[in-house]
């Protein structure tokens, strides 16, 4: 659905994005994470055709990013919700439905449906009088007004309270279940981890790691084995009447078993702990590894 090849964007002497290459499959949820200034937003805007790349190729749904037809099939949600505050949700969404050539009866039905799903009341209130969360919901509704195949969401839950954030993440999950192709960025890695099929980690304009969560954990994360014994072994700590030793390989697990047997005890439990995406991200960022 989305093909990005050797994407580069320069502002004067500064390269905001350099050499990004990735692909997003139809119906996939693809996350882009990274610290501030990593190039996430610039990348998303190049996908949406808002920013012209200095070099490289972008194809969305088979169209170039600056193709009007591509825009018809795209729903874009910027990090902020810059709405026209003198309008109401209904007039605002109706206007954009017109721009996307959505028939008025379809638009009316879609607006009603989407606002209901987003649990948004006060549809005739001016947008300027609404809370940040409500505005965000209207912005999300606008991104869906053309029933797009591809959604590009930049920090969809940025700056919202936990309740609204959770609501929006759940809503995005539902969109993914409906088969939408979604690319989105987030600072909160828990959100990315919870709904993304694959992730790209960006740092200083470059993609430094990418893949599904298992692959990233395998390549950049650490697996810990918590071995519980009935007797004390080296490097173990007593917990709830048992002794726990944390090791990083199966060889060390075997060595712990042998040590417990020699001490007259035995291993009673072994638990595996995988690295979270956040730990993977920190590992990648600290090591500065660049994936070829």
């Amino acid at each position, binding site marked *: 659905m989305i093909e990005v090849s050797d994407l580069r964007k320069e502002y*004067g002497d500064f390269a905001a994005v350099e050499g990004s290459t990735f692909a997003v499959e139809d119906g996939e949820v693809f996350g882009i994470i990274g610290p501030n200034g990593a190039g996430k937003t610039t990348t998303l*805007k190049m996908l*949406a*055709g*808002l*920013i*012209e790349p200095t070099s490289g190729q972008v194809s969305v749904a088979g169209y170039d990013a600056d193709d*009007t*037809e591509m*825009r*018809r099939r*795209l729903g*874009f949600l*910027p990090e*902020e919700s*810059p*709405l*026209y505050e*003198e*309008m109401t949700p209904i*007039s605002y969404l109706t*206007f*954009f439905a*017109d*721009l*996307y*050539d959505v028939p008025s009866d379809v638009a009316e039905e879609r607006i009603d449906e989407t606002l209901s799903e987003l649990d948004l009341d006060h549809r005739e209130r001016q947008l300027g009088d609404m809370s940040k969360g409500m505005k965000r919901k209207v912005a999300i509704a*606008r991104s869906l007004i053309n029933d797009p195949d591809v959604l590009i969401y930049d920090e969809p839950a940025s700056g919202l309270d936990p309740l609204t954030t959770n609501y929006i993440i759940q809503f995005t999950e539902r969109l993914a279940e409906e088969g939408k192709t979604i690319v989105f960025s987030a600072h909160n890695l828990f959100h990315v981890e919870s709904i993304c099929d694959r992730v790209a980690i960006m740092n200083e304009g470059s993609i430094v790691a990418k893949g599904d969560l298992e692959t990233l954990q395998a390549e950049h994360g650490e697996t810990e084995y918590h071995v519980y014994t009935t007797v004390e072994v080296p490097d173990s700590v007593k917990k709830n009447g048992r002794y726990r030793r944390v090791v990083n390989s199966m060889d060390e697990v075997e060595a712990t078993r042998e040590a417990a047997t020699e001490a007259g005890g035995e291993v009673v439990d072994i638990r595996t702990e995988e690295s979270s995406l956040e730990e993977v991200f920190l590992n990648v960022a600290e090591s500065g590894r660049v994936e070829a």
Partner: protein
Amino acid sequence: MRPRKLLRIARWEVTKNAGGVDKRTLAVAGLAIALIAVLAPAVAAQGAVLDEGIYRVAVDEDSRYYDVVEENPTFVARPDATREDLGESVDLYIEDGYVSPAASPKGRAAKEELRSAVQAYNNEQLRQEANQSAAFPVSVSLEYREQSQAGGTLATDGEDPQQVRDPDNRSDNRTGDGTPVDGNGSNATDGTDGTDGTDGTDGTNGTDGTDGTDGTAGAPNSGGLGGAGSAISGDGDSVDSPSQLSPPFPFESLVLAFVFIIPMNFLIQAYGSTILSERLNRRGELLLVSPVSRYEIIGGKTLPYFAGAMAIEAVIAVGLTYVGTGTIGGLVSIAAILPLVALFLAATFVGAMFARSFKELTFVTVTITVGLTSYAFVPAIFTDVTPIALISPLTVVVRDLQGQAVAAPEFLFSVTPPLLSAIVLFGLGAGLYREEDMFAQRAIPLKVLDALAGPVRKRWHVGAMVAVLLPFVFVLQLLAIAVLFALGEVSIPLLLVVVAVVEEIAKSLPVYAAYAHKRFERSTVSALVLGAIAGAGFFVGEKITQLAQLVGLPELAQGQAALQIAPTDVGAPILIALFFLPLLLHGVTAAISAVGASRGKRAYVVALGVAMLVHLVYNLAVLSEVLGNV
């Protein structure tokens, strides 16, 4: 561009802002419109008389001054008043042809006003004569003078009936119909001073009457009241500069121009705000990502303001025509005002694209208001005084509303530069209407460079960009003529300086912008090539100024100096040389600036100064010498 999308955005622009206008703004706008609605028809119908009936005159009905007093709304005739009332209930007392003013400032002012009224009355009487040549005989005095380098060479010789100077060099009167334009000026109207000669109270003015017969197109004495200038009568045909004229202030032209210019100044405030609000807080980002082009967005957002402005101007034009003539008309006025409306909006659009905040926008709109109002309004006031007034489309409007014919070349001369400038401004602004530029908080000069460098991708684009800037150069030069020509011959060298400065900036700025945006390699060879291309682009575009020959502007020394129009009565080799010399000049000076631009800002400033100097020397020495010898 798809009309449906454009109209949808236009409709949205109207409905979106409909609820955003507060009652106070509506009240002020309504008051302004009401004021215009009341004032303009009054002016169109009878002229503005702000001092109606302020002087009371004791004059008998059988006095020859009675008709003068009656016909001038400034006076109120009091036939029954006596000498004892002088200074009390009357300001002037007229008996047996003698005028006695009250011993007060108002009395003296009343006497002066009576003198002017007599002049106007006489003039009107003379205009009603069947034989106008007899009514306004022309006497021409020739004097051959050594030509001065600047002004003299550009002035016509004494054999040119269009530019005969009087011996005192006080006026350039030349007329087709013999009607002087000096009104009550120092020359032509002196005959009117016969008024005083008649009453025998002002010997000095009687001397002035000599000037009337001196024949610098002044009207002779007529009867006991003497001749009078035609003032701003509309049938004058002079190229005098204001420094050489003292016409009555053309209040009617002023009000008419004012009526048309005021609504636009209101409108651009709202238009600038709506454009800037798209840029603040990234509000316009979602429109940019929707399936409409930036041109549809700009067109849609501009259309309501353009249509609104044209509707208001059309109502004013048609209304004034109807009040003035009783017929439905004003199409010429409407057509002439269109490019001015477009220019106001285009300048505001670019200004709003440059401004970083509403504070900066205020500065921008004030600058636009002052600049464009000066360009459009001031020349239009002098509609009947000089052909330079035609640089403003408002002049066409005023002439049309005054019932004067406007020739097609004159119309084109007035409307083409502002129309082209508007198109170019919209084009430059549209180049910035994209995510990367419109939300960037860059300083205005940097935004200007962004706009200039935006479309430049190949070398020849620099030449095209320079040519595109020609309407601005033309407008600025015309404005300089209008502003400076009041200074007389001193204006010629000043104009040449303005020409050098404006043209060199126009040629070099796109090159500098291209280098600043790393469009081309910074090398001397590259700079020389770009300079040559920029010079050639300017040369091609400059030929547009030949449009000026369609009206009488080149007959002015100032017009020749600024527009550098070659004479036509010379041989082919000189004509060819005069044709190609500017190409050489522009190529050389643009190359000088380009070399500086390729080496950074400071070098560019220095090189630009050198280029201006070379241009100025060329203008002063070569051009004037060539024109002086032909």
